[in-house]
């Protein structure tokens, strides 16, 4: 915690570490940490376009589809339980070069002769049978990747961040203190070196997928092996809008996220064993009663 003086009312306000901005608890005016901006300059900010009520409605819709979610979780989509947070992301532009080796299969057709018996007579017929001829192939691939996002927040694991994407960085605005005032804006807690490692790994995975789906010739392929080298441009730091709902689940707190730009809802909801057990019991009961009825009928 650091203590900051509110420029509006003069109150001394405690700012939790890792927070770039928050509101003064006494007069509700915005506190923006200029030192944080100097330490880790934010390049651009994507403002919230999904308001609180809409985020809550999307969350309710998402939970309504989760039949086996515990009731305590299903009731949790309350607008007041949502926190708006500007989450830091590293943005990479990169050129990825990949060499690959694979087996490529090309179809060819063999004419097969076979006999059939029609009206007691044996007839000889032919048919085309598809075969595949396999060839080894080595080659390469290149691609320029723009705006590849890597979470810069320990609070938002990369897997969850990927599920929240895409964000449209075209709608981003150059950083200005007014854009982050009044919103909890987090400080980056994942350093560039670590983020670069994640970016390289993700780009290698993407290259593998692109080569498998669009770059290999022939009708089939197998044994694809790829080796990717990515030249990363220095990353830019952006703040992206996320609604966070902390919900008390049956076994502890759980967290659901709503993309503050697209409305995409992300979260793993636990299943209620009571509900699953109840449904299983009901099914069993129906089956048993059917069996019994048939037994009695005989």
């Amino acid at each position, binding site marked *: 915690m650091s203590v900051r003086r509110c420029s509006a009312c003069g109150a001394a306000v405690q700012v939790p570490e890792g927070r770039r901005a928050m509101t003064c608890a006494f007069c509700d005016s915005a506190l923006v940490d200029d030192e944080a901006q100097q330490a880790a300059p934010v390049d651009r900010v994507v403002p919230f376009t999904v308001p609180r009520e809409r985020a809550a409605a999307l969350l309710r819709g998402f939970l309504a589809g989760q039949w086996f979610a515990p009731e305590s979780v299903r009731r949790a989509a309350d607008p007041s339980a949502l926190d708006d947070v500007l989450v830091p992301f590293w943005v990479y532009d990169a*050129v990825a070069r990949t060499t690959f080796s694979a087996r*490529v299969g*090309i*179809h*060819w057709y063999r004419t097969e002769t076979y006999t059939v018996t029609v009206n007691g007579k044996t007839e000889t017929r032919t048919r085309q049978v598809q*075969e595949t*001829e396999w*060839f080894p*192939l*080595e*080659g*390469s*691939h*290149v*691609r*320029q990747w723009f705006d590849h996002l890597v979470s810069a927040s320990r609070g938002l694991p990369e897997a969850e961040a990927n599920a929240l994407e895409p964000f449209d960085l075209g709608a981003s605005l150059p950083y200005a203190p007014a854009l982050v005032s009044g919103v909890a804006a987090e400080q980056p807690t994942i350093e560039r070196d670590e983020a670069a490692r994640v970016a390289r790994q993700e780009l290698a995975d993407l290259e593998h997928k*692109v080569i498998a789906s*669009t*770059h*290999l*010739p*022939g009708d089939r392929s197998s044994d694809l092996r790829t080796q990717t080298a990515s030249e990363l441009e220095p990353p830019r730091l952006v703040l992206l809008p996320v609604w966070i709902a902390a919900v008390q689940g049956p076994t502890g707190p759980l967290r659901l996220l709503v993309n503050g730009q697209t409305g995409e809802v992300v979260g793993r909801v636990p299943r209620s064993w009571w509900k699953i057990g109840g449904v299983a019991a009901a099914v069993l009961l129906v089956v048993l009663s059917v069996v019994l009825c048939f037994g009695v009928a005989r």
Partner: protein
Amino acid sequence: MSAELAAVRCSGCGGTVRMVAGRSLPRCLFCGADAADLVPTEPPEGIEPPVGQLPFVTTADQARETFQTFATSSIWYPDDLRSAKLELRPLLLPAWAWSGEVETHWTGLVSSTTRSGKAPVAGVDHVRFEQILVPASRSLRMSELASLGAWDERALTAFDPETCEHPMELSELTRSAARQRAQQEMEARHRSSIERDHGLRKIRVSSLVTQLEGRPVMVPVFIGAYRYGDRTFRVLVNAQSGRFVGSAPKSWIKMFAAFTLGVVVLVALVLGVMACSGLFAVAAGSG
């Protein structure tokens, strides 16, 4: 000679032309609208002025001859088109000239003595493109620009808008948009040449374009627009290669006349046949 430049925008089609102040156009070059529709306008901001130009090779007389050949090329064109004194005026169209290096990683299939008759291949080719021209005209359709054909970029010379005697269309294509088009054009050209050079079937490519450098330039055309009924027709002549682009109306009077003639001939034929068969019937009856 240095002169002030003024721009006019056609309130009908939006075509914007810049020319030496004091000169005026009798009508819109793009749609043929009256001079009253041409309103003074400010050139768009943030658009770089052209620095290069391809010179006029075709003369106005040659362009007119090309049009005459076209006007008499179909019997369906109206007679007044043949005799039309269509005024073809010189115009400079905006374009961007880009140079860059392309690295294309490709895979494909080649003919082979395998069972399928094909075998997979892969490779990497590099090429440098000089002064690839990308059209930046806003008023002409992409199909018209494509039909104007290729330009010989080697003839590019320096250009000074202030000493240019011809009207020029103002571009609204930004550098980044032009850059994107140039990149796509270079990738497409390299892809075609690789496909040809290696005899590939079903080519797949991934390309990287680097060292991109571009500058706005002007390319010369002759343009003429005329109205026929309530439609506007436009003709263009590439003033470097002499290539003609244009469409013309079909004469409804001629088509109606031809149709009527056809019907008359058909009716006459039918009547003739009926009359003949009637005569035969009469002859048969009397016989």
